[in-house]
């Protein structure tokens, strides 16, 4: 287990470093930060001035190493665009993104687990197919489009919900649904197949033979076993949601780090983009790592290999 742990940890660190390097290069390729920073009407002297001022004229590798060495010490630098420390900018916004991510994940679980169980109890009937359809629609619809449809129906037509902002809990309802719905099919299918497998096993037959109530069998004996792989997938899904919130935050004008990433890419605000990519990749890597560990803990076959 310890060897497995070390291997996985080493891999996680390497992935984080690789992601930060690739993103650093990609952002440079997508446009000259000095031009973006100087603004549309800037003359060539102004652009050169900005380039020197912010050190964009130095070799890429020097810029990267300098950034990385400061980042390790927790200094993510200052946004040349906003003139604010990056940690402060992210700190002000991470709350919204985390709230949205957790709400969306909860929504996805609350929708997909009952659907998966229902589908497994009545496999290959209309209930199964309906449950599958509901969840697959979620994945088939682009989330920004679904978000806009909800705005039109719930916000404009029936005026039930506020359209943009994050002032009250009501502001989070539409973004939560838009983001959470997308993750539903993956979880639902996993619950369904897990339940089917468990329900066909001997201990369930024994439980039935003992005369236990059906509800108790389902919940205590079947679902608890079937849910284990789902827990591991949830960790990865949360990572997806934090990344996916870039689009949803923009549509609903939630000023979280997703939206911050989006505008920062547009204006080549490198330190901010870099920091967000690093943060999201760390969260993602940590979650994946935890789910690996959890799987290994639950299933000895993985760690032996």
């Amino acid at each position: 287990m310890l060897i497995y742990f070390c291997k996985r940890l080493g891999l996680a660190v390497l992935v984080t470093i690789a992601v930060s390097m690739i993103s650093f290069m990609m952002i440079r390729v997508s446009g000259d930060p000095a031009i973006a920073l100087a603004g549309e009407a800037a003359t060539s002297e102004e652009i050169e001035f900005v380039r020197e001022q912010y050190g964009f004229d130095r070799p890429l590798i020097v810029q990267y190493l300098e950034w990385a060495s400061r980042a390790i010490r927790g200094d993510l630098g200052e946004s040349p665009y906003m003139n604010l420390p990056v940690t402060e900018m992210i700190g002000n916004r991470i709350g919204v993104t985390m709230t949205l991510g957790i709400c969306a994940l909860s929504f996805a679980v609350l929708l997909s687990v009952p659907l998966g169980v229902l589908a497994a109890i009545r496999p290959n009937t209309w209930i199964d197919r309906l449950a599958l359809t509901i969840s697959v629609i979620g994945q088939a619809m682009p989330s920004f489009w679904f978000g806009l449809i909800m705005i039109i129906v719930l916000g404009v037509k029936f005026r039930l919900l506020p359209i943009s902002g994050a002032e009250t809990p009501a502001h989070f309802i539409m973004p939560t649904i838009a983001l959470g719905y997308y993750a539903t099919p993956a979880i639902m299918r996993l619950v369904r197949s897990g339940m089917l497998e468990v329900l066909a096993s001997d201990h369930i037959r024994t439980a039935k033979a003992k005369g236990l109530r059906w509800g108790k069998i389902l919940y205590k004996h079947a679902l608890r076993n079937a849910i284990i792989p789902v827990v591991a997938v949830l960790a990865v899904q949360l990572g997806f949601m934090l990344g996916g919130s870039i689009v949803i935050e923009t549509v609903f004008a939630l000023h979280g780090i997703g939206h911050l990433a989006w505008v920062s890419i547009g204006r080549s605000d490198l330190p901010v983009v870099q920091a967000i990519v690093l943060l999201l990749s760390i969260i993602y890597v940590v979650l994946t790592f935890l789910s690996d560990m959890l799987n290994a803990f639950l299933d000895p076959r993985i760690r032996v290999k």
Partner: protein
Amino acid sequence: MHSWKKHSRIWIAAMVLLGLVLSSAAWAGKKDDTLNVAFTKELESLDRYFNTAREGIVFARHVYDNLLFRDPETYEYEGLLAKSFEWEDEVTLNIELRQGVEFHNGQEMTADDAVYTLNYAADPDNKVKTQRYSNWIDKAEKTGPYSFTIHLKYPFPPALEFLSGANPVYPKDYHQEVGYKGFGVKPIGTGPYKATEIEPGKRLVLVKNENYFQNSPKGQPSIGKIVWRTLPEMNTQVAELITGSLDWAFLVPPDQAEQLKKVPNVQVVPAETMRIGYLTFDAANFSETKHDIDNPFKEVKVRQAVSHAINRQAIADNLIGGGSRPIYTPCYPSQLGCIEEAAKEYAYDPEKAQELLTEAGYPDGFDCILYAYRNRPFAEAMVGNLKAVGIDAKLVMMKYSALRERQRAGKTPLQFLTWGSYSINDVSAIISNFFEHEADDITRDPKLKEWLEAADKEMDTEKRKELYGKAIARITERAYWAPLFSYVSNNCFSKDLNFTPYPDAVPRFYMATWK
């Protein structure tokens, strides 16, 4: 079934709670004298010298005052913070300030503040982002408690334009105390509105300045409170306009504006802006000489053929709408020095275009790339127009900064670009920017450089116009650019609001009133 009954009370309670939460999100507007406005871009700093976005100009016009004021209709200059101004000679401008004007913190505005702000902006060590707006100033010198002199580095005809549009006066003591970073998040000015709540990048609240000085050419503000939000997605802005939680938005694309026209509580007022669209050609032939990229556009007849091939009127009418018109000058017609008679007009004439291509040695046309960074539908229409005369243009959309980098490297034979001149009503803000052999100049005509540099420093308006006229004639005759059309901003706002848009696309909420 059982469980539903068991939990039904919880469900009902949840519904009631939800209802309460929702009903508390009350919409503001005329009733509580609050104007809700939205912009798609967030401001990097509230300090005018440290932001480069249009939103920065809008904010500055409300919270700060400039020394001079440009009448939005007549384009005449008059004093704003200045009571009077007078040119002593070509490089010396004497200014007498108004007395009794107060900053939002109650301190009186004097010559010390004006001199300090101008010198601060002009000093390259302070690294202001808008160098161009103030780098013509050598120094400002106090001559009395309310009078001072601006010494210019060289004769600079647009000086009054920049003093009326881009150089607000800050309170010296406060600015020194908090520095530009502090000022950028908690600004103080003399303007008709005070910034009272600031959530950077998210939301601003501007409250009417009750002590705004009398006789300001801006007039007295009427609406009590402005809530300014950043809503990055235009669809969201449109939805909020429909529900009434937003009272004003601009730069709404034509198709969405068309939808909003059907909404009873919203009015749509399109207004032409100073932004023009145009095609640029690599007349200097950097593509071939530096990079070996095929460049048919080095031939004047090919450029003229393209100028004849584009159906400007159709794009203006059908894709932009709202009063957009074909433009034949490499500048917006209201700009000083934009002499329309000097420009050669290329009417839409595909046959003529084909003839010119044949004469240029391309009877069967050729393949090329059309680079663009915005308005894909317009660019696609142009690709269709070019196809009709035999030019097979492949459209490549890029990010603005990436395209500009490519242009500077000399790798863009054909581009569709736009320029808003930063609302500066002077051709030096557009023509001089692109034809004086700077990095962005892909024409490199020595005659143009000579005339334009002379014009930029010429203080005699008639002589200036003559020189710019010559430049415009040469640019259009040789078809260095193919000017296309003007842009229109669709101002969409509540029917309760009286609001007048102007071509500089700077909304003036201080002039707005409730009906």
